[in-house]
């Protein structure tokens, strides 16, 4: 029963990732694609957590943290690039 629940969770999350991917492909503007990829990263964290339960292994704990950090930094860098044309501001004014 417990295994079945985990499988159902994996299926639901896969559908969710697929929907994000569709938006990232068709999104009319680049900002839409950034939103979709940000949400994609959050869903991947959920997938890895369920895989951790299924395999009974704690090896992926750091992976969840790293994906969270990378998704955030990637979104912020892309948004700043769209806004200013650069990622890192050289002058503060």
């Amino acid at each position, binding site marked *: 029963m417990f295994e079945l629940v985990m499988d*159902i969770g994996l299926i*639901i999350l896969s559908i*969710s990732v697929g929907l994000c991917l569709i938006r990232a492909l068709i999104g009319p503007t680049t*900002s839409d694609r950034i*939103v979709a990829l940000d*949400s994609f990263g959050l869903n991947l964290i*959920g997938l890895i957590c369920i895989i951790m*339960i299924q395999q009974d292994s*704690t090896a992926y704990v750091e992976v969840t943290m790293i994906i969270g950090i990378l998704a955030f930094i990637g979104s912020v860098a892309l948004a700043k690039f769209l806004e200013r044309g650069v990622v890192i501001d050289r002058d503060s004014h």
Partner: protein
Amino acid sequence: MIEILISIFIIGGCLLSLIGSLGIIRLKDIYGRMHAATKSATLGVILIIIGTFITFMGRGTLLFSLFFTILFVFLTAPVAAMIISRSAHRIGVELWENTQFDELHDSYPEELKPERDNSKAEEISTR
């Protein structure tokens, strides 16, 4: 008994993630999509992580570093939402036609006002 609790957390989190993705597909402009992506996906991930923590607690390991992931997601999701929507508004991504008023557009100085036109945004984004 503990398995029922874990199942509720995991399935609830997965359904919330699905709601977030459905919102990203269904809503009509980027600002509405930002609502779905921020709120639903954040709570969904937090519920799944709590379920994982309870599972490993039942098996005899305390994984406190999972809580750092929760803290990180909780702190960064609003910041990312703000920066993405601000940049979208500044480069002139069009609002949905149902939008009632736009007080942010009025607050920009005259020379910085973006042209509210989707073709302009497309041009900037593909440059």
